[in-house]
């Protein structure tokens, strides 16, 4: 049973550097790291000290308020560094692998007969729990909650995003196990959003919906809104397809296997392709000498809309399965505002990219203008396929008006849903930053 939903509003930003569907060789990362800043709604406390030996699956961090939520080491090795920033904030925990293949063992033999509670316990102990994200707010789910439904977006429509079908490869049966496990966590439905042509459409025990149309069709918030909108008091859980695979592997073998296939993309990559790696790898081992080095490069963990700016010494984000390398663009452009800018993409017809529908672009990180007060109207609405007034929501956040935020739908959105609004903004408003500020305020006020 499936139905097709057409997303009409949105925008596909056509960039150069989509990954070719091949897996190329890559160096084994010298170190692996977990970065607490990747986790929303998680207050990190250390479970290890420097020089401790950890197995793949040994907890490194736990949450101050929910100590049963832990983040585990992806590999066997030694805790090499615990880097701290301002006010002794933990920046990352770095593991130096020693080549041993030792895993924490988890009792999964009879999981089909086990209760929901024991499955949750298994997910918590194995460190896979932080992959389960709750809506509203886009924070790590609370194990004590009963989610109305669980939503998975089984494709990615963001610029240059990896093909999820390709990443799953021949592990579809494992993916199915992951889905079966998740189905036990809710009394509601398990939803999987796919492109109509996806080979995952044959999976069972899950409500499959097909989505057509431009980005943000793959954003899980958009899918929830178009299938069964979230109201005040509702809680649903979401999880990304990569993590469904991790769960599937755990329940298949009883061991954690954090190997993942990621896409190396972007205009500055010589030959964009897929790489096999392990969660938490160092960026340098993945990017290596695969970029052009023509200009100052910006390396992004994730995609250009929602990813995090990193550098070679940093590590791939916990939730990311993509690296994008684009020009930094920290250059001046002579009377740029008056130029035809034939090599720049724009949704606006004030430039000409709309006349060249097949062309792809080498976009850089330049703001292409200065920040201003809101002047133009109706732009955000064109790229947000939701029954939400985005500008009014953002303004209610700027005014710290929690009642209005609630009424205007802050429960339904997180950063990725509004990322395109930020992209198209004439006034260069920092939409995602403002939205997170609003969400944090609501979380704080409402507990």
């Amino acid at each position, binding site marked *: 049973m499936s139905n097709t939903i057409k997303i009409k509003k949105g925008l596909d930003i056509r960039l150069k550097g989509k990954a070719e569907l091949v897996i190329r060789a890559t160096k084994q990362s010298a170190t692996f790291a977990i970065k607490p800043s990747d986790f929303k709604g998680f207050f990190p406390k250390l479970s290890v000290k420097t020089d401790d030996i950890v197995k793949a699956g040994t907890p490194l961090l736990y949450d101050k308020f929910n100590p049963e939520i832990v983040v585990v080491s992806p590999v066997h090795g030694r805790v090499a560094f615990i880097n701290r920033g301002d006010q002794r904030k933990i920046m990352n925990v770095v593991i130096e692998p020693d080549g041993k293949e030792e895993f924490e063992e988890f009792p999964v033999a009879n999981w089909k007969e086990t209760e929901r509670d024991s499955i949750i316990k298994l997910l918590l102990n194995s460190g896979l729990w932080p992959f389960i994200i709750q809506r509203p707010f886009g924070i790590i789910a609370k194990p004590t909650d009963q989610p109305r439904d669980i939503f998975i977006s089984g494709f990615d429509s963001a610029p240059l995003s990896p093909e999820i079908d390709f990443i799953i490869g021949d592990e579809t049966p494992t993916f199915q196990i992951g889905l079966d496990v998740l189905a036990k966590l809710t009394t509601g439905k398990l939803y999987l959003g796919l492109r109509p042509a996806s080979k995952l459409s044959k999976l069972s025990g899950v409500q499959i919906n097909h989505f057509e149309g431009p980005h943000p069709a793959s954003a899980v918030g958009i899918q929830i809104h178009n299938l069964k909108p979230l109201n005040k008091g509702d809680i649903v859980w979401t999880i990304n397809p990569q993590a469904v695979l991790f769960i599937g592997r755990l329940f298949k073998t009883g061991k954690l296997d954090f190997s993942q296939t990621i896409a190396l993309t972007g205009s500055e990559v010589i030959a964009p392709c897929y790489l096999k790696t392990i969660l938490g790898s160092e960026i340098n081992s993945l990017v290596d000498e695969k970029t052009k080095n023509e200009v100052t490069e910006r390396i992004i963990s994730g995609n250009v809309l929602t990813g995090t700016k990193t550098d070679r010494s940093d590590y791939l984000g916990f939730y990311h399965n993509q690296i994008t390398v684009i020009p930094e663009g920290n250059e*001046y452009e002579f009377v740029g505002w008056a130029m035809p*800018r034939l090599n720049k993409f724009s949704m606006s017809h004030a430039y000409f990219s709309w006349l060249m529908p097949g062309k792809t672009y080498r976009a850089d990180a330049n*703001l292409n203008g200065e920040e201003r007060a809101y002047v133009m109207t*109706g732009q955000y609405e064109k790229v947000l396929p939701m029954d939400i007034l985005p500008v009014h929501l953002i303004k209610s956040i700027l005014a710290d008006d929690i009642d209005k935020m609630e009424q*205007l739908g802050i429960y339904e959105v997180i950063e990725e849903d509004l990322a395109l609004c930020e992209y198209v903004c004439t006034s260069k408003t920092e939409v995602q930053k403002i939205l997170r500020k609003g969400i944090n305020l609501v979380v704080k006020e409402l507990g």
Partner: protein
Amino acid sequence: MKTLRKYIDNKKPLFQKGGKFSKLGSTFGAFETFLFTPNHTSKSGVHIHDSIDLKRTMIVVVVALIPALLFGSWNIGYQNGLAFGIERGLFENFFFGFLKLLPLIVVSYGVGLGIEFISAQIRGHEVSEGFLVTGILIPLILPVNIPLWMLALAVAFAVIFGKEIFGGTGYNIMNVALIARAFLFFAYPSHMSGDKVWIFDLNNKVPVDGFSGATPLAQLAQESSTKLASIHDMFFGFIPGSIGETSTFAILIGAAILIFTGIGSWKIMLSTVIGALSIGLICNIFAINEYMALPAYYHLLMGGFAFGAVFMATDPVTAPHTEKGKWVYGFLIGALVVLIRIFNPAYPEGMMLAILLMNIWATLIDYFVVEGHIKRRMKRFTIKGNA
């Protein structure tokens, strides 16, 4: 360009904090960013941004105004020739008019930008681009005989009390260009209406026999519709009137540019026309006097209707910010214009007042649209809650 960039980079520290001329930082920044799009890159959120910015947006509007501006220049010469029986060629008419228009534009930009720069400086802000458009709009909606000092006064009033006291571009509640016009209209009515003001020099010299400098709206108010200019003349703009507003044709070219680039709201333009036509047709049905009998579509060609609908009503800051609100807003502007013209003979021109009034209502329209939106969302909640 590299030498210029180097020169700017050299001088920049002087204007930054602690520099000798740090008090002129905003001014320096305005010129610098005018010459070079800055090298700022994204710090949070999305890593790439659309190429569009406020400078580009504003420049597109200025480009859209060029047809009206060119035609307006020519028409100054042409009307002057008609009035005094002087024969001129196409280019002579144009240059005659252009030389009359140029001082108005220079004064408008000079005074307006001067105030913008000073107030940005006082607040320590960047200079916003809003006045790039306002500065050219103001001369185009004035009669050619307006004295320069009056123009300067009106621009100063409009920029200070219409915009800067609210916080600058993006925060004003009424259209700045129209505030300038309204200021002149009420402060110096003799320079803003009547038969003498629309044609260059007509206030000083005696025209040839039988020439009347009255605009079609004034003709309608004073005399009768029998003397009205032909539809052809009104559409192409061979009539007396404010500099930029006479040619509906030139304005439509501008409208096409605004709509194709997506910078002007077609919803507002269309609904303004619909509003004017509907009220015009209703009046036609009753047709008790000449005004009401005037075919509804005449209203679209006369006075400032077209210019107002395309360039003034669509100002995104003072129009409603919701898409539904834009329909209501446009419709009410169109309806009000015709109502003011027909039922308020004291002001033959209704466009300025209709838009200013609706500017004030725009917030209210938005309020109802947003409340309706919230109610619908809440309803979704209760239906679900009962189920």
